[in-house]
């Protein structure tokens, strides 16, 4: 096994492009190292991106948008008060992952590229409209967060490509986001269902909305029908019922050790409703 700690994303990309066999990028390592230790994967090449300049920066841009380095940890996000005020749902989604120790290492970029349908931060990223910069052999390109995972454990990234930055939109006025997950315990668990809602209000009326579901399909879903169900409403009972059924209709989950098809489908509707109410209260300034 070769371990590399490149100084730039171009160098990282070049190393990955030339590597033979199994390659893994190492950010926080909270997935890769666990997979290594449990003998699930033994990479031939391990490329550590933590030491690349800027990889640990949280930057607020002039237009109010945010750029996050790929090695920014969950703990660093949670301790960033301004980011938390703008995107509390995104920060909370990240903060739900693992333990305090894991939070010191785990990253948004890693959670996205691990491509688990149950990843907690991904529905929140998708609902927030997060985009990523990808560095590859042919230069850089951008993609929406939801375009990265293609199947459990699989991404759209080509050989030599890696995520080199994350871009969170400007929050703007009267917007709110929220992420809720269902776990059988209170912490230290993996989502059986996850739901993120990001919306904007004009007065009491929802004018824009994004609804994203996790752990109910092979990849995290952006559910446009669910968003449409609440746009133009004041999130009254009828809108919530429509949201619930649109969310359920989007589900194509599996039966497994964590939950049944019926359970996941039912709870996806419940959590979509609850997350929408939470995001709505945040947009109105009634909740933090």
């Amino acid at each position, binding site marked *: 096994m070769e371990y590399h700690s490149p100084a730039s994303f171009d160098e990282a990309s070049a190393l990955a492009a030339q590597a033979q066999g199994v390659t893994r990028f190492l950010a926080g390592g909270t997935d890769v190292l666990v997979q290594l230790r449990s003998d699930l994967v033994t990479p031939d090449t391990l490329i550590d991106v933590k030491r690349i300049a800027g990889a640990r920066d949280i930057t607020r841009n002039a237009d109010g948008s945010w750029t996050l380095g790929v090695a920014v940890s969950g703990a660093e996000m949670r301790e960033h008060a301004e980011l938390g005020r703008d995107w509390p749902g995104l920060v909370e989604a990240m903060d739900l992952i693992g333990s305090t120790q894991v939070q010191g290492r785990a990253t948004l970029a890693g959670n996205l590229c691990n491509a688990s349908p149950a990843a907690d931060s991904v529905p929140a990223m998708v609902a927030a409209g997060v985009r990523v910069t990808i560095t590859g052999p042919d230069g850089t390109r951008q993609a929406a967060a939801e375009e990265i995972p293609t199947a459990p454990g699989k991404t759209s990234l080509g050989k030599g490509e890696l995520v080199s930055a994350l871009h969170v939109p400007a929050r703007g006025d009267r917007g709110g986001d929220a992420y809720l997950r269902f776990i059988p315990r209170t912490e230290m668990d993996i989502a059986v269902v996850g739901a993120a809602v990001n919306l904007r209000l004009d007065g009491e009326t929802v004018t824009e909305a994004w609804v994203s579901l996790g752990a109910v399909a092979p990849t995290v879903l952006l559910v446009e029908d669910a968003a449409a169900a609440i746009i133009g409403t004041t999130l009254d009972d009828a809108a919530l019922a429509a949201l619930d059924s649109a969310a359920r209709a989007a589900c194509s989950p599996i039966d497994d*050790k964590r*939950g*049944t098809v019926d*359970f996941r489908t039912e709870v996806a509707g419940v959590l979509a409703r609850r997350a929408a109410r939470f995001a709505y209260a945040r947009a109105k300034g009634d909740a933090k």
Partner: protein
Amino acid sequence: MALDDSKREFRFVGTRPDRPDGLDKVTGRARFGADMNAAGMLHGAILRSPHAHARIVRIDTSKAEALADVKAVVTRADFAEVPFKPGLAGEVWNVLENVMAGDKALYDGHAVAAVAATSALAARDALKLIEVEYEELPYVTDVNAAMRQDAPVIREGAADFSVPDDMHPNVVRRHESGHGDVEAGFAEADLVIEDSFETEATHQGYIEPHACLGQLGKDGKGELWCCTQGHWIVQKTCAALLGIETANLRVTASEIGGGFGGKTTVFIEPVALALSRKANRPVKIVMSRAEVFRATGPTASASMDIKVGMKKDGTITAAQGEFRLQGGAFPGAPGDMTAMCAFAPYDLKNVHQVGYDVMTNRPKQAAYRAPGSPMAAFAVESVVDELCRKLDLDPIEVRLKNAAREGTKASYGPRFERIGLVETLEAAKAHPHYAAPLKPGQGRGISCGFWFNHGGETSVSLALSEDGSVQLMVGTPDIGGSRASMALMAAEVLGIPYENIRVTIADTASLGYNDVSHGSRVTYASGLATIKAAKDAVRKLSQRAAAKWGIPEDAVKWEDGCAVPSGPNAGDFDPLPLAEITAEMGQTGGPISGHFEATPEGAGVSFATHIVDAEVDRETGATKVVRYTVIQDAGKAIHPTYVEGQFQGGAAQGIGWALNEEYIYGEDGRLQNAGFLDYRIPVASDLPMIDTVIVEVPNPGHPFGVRGVGETSICPPLAAIANAVSAAAGVRMRHLPMSPPRTLAALKARDA
């Protein structure tokens, strides 16, 4: 058995000093199973079957053996020949077969070969080079399916005499007991409820994985350091499996990071010794968590049918139950214990119970805190709860009305001596928890629970030092604060401070035989032996004082740590403190020690009553335990903090078992959740504060009145929580764990 020297007033017993092993444990100085290393040590690793049931056609270890880092490879051929016998009579054979597969791999995770290499990584990689040719066989992992006539046979000839000939060979033991005429009893009832219940297998979930360091020479002499609840059984079993003499293997028990019954047998220890014998170097094996789940523990799963009849006034007229327990690919599932415990809290005229021990293609079940009793209580107490609901009766009043008392003929046969069930029920009734209002969406459940408790073979030695300090050597690994309790009991007899007594868990070469720390026996049996050993020392101390004073031995008594004349006629001498006697003991007759060895029989059964409030999210099926009170008879609490700890620990493990913990098998017969992520033990934030009430109804079989407390605390939780959840959800929950998908499905079925 009453004792004529029972003591009821105490100076040290009942206080709460710091535990003697506390500082070691919080500073990392304590040495657990994996903390022992030796010069030249190799690392062992075990190859495990990926199949639920398969014939082992061929094992080729040559590629692994060719590696320079690999120093030994063992398979079943490297162990002793042990004769097969049916049932538990062949337990040594059963253990050997579990430790290393013979002709067949019997479950996913069954050991088939092992290597010792120069590093843990080299050992792991060497396993990949061992080629095993399997012929896959049909398998069964469910208890009811395993009893059906068309079920795959796990092993012919494993059943003992108790099983009728027409039953499937997977049924290996049958228990039947009871008294009266249940049919006549049911005819007298105003309401009879018959219902069926299931519980899934759960793991003991100790945080410390099994670990050992073994060394065995070609001369048949060896040493073993391991994490265990009982090192004499390890010594005896390993010696048998390796074909050496018991005394030639010295076993030392490390500190233990939890056992709960699961560390009362051997798994990796004989393998480390076999590898060591072949490599002629010490070998260390540490299990991964996945190995712990796949190949150790768990408890049995159960399928149960219960029928109880009740009159309108709450009198139970008859009760019967059938309990089918699945214990993996070997005999040993506690169908008998389950049946015997099921109705033990009740004074019944008519009762009948049958228990079955059934084999499946799962890991060999191991004891888990009151094995069999929690599931029995779940089934029975659910039906009693339902009867109370239907007849609009208070569940505590009904239990009081039918409660077993001193003199009651127990459902399993004997007459109870003095027991404390009624006292726990009265305390529950009087507790503020029972009267506290519930919020909408919440439900309250109560349940009683019973466990036999155990005595067992016990040896204790106590050696006095010249300066008057005392070394106490016990042979029961400290799994719950027993060193503190032993020191308190010795202090009570000797009359010297707790801090002056150091308690050591002696190795097998330093003390006579001791049974495992199980059956809630340690504070009872090692405690009784400690008291007797201390009294033996006191007798010798008094003899020295008598000799010094020139008066008869019976003219000396022991008071507050001093020899004193027994009365005015004995003479006028100043009290002679223990340390003054020991300071001169080399010149007055030599070292002074106290000893005691016995198999005490008066363990004293134990009862508890639990009150639980639970809240159910009706949209998701999520359950939260919001309030929990444990009320249990401890006989006499030697160190009340550790008694409370046992109460809380039983409740916490019960909450996990009731709500989320379960072994999940796939269609492929493989364990789906061999890790703490998907095997869901409660985390701290899942649990409410668990209140405790210690009831003390002294056990007549112990000098200070002790009853074991370690196991009874896990008997009521499953039922109490199920009753609370059923009340909160408005639907009877019959299948544990009550995981959110199961609860939501029950809610949907109710509404449909």
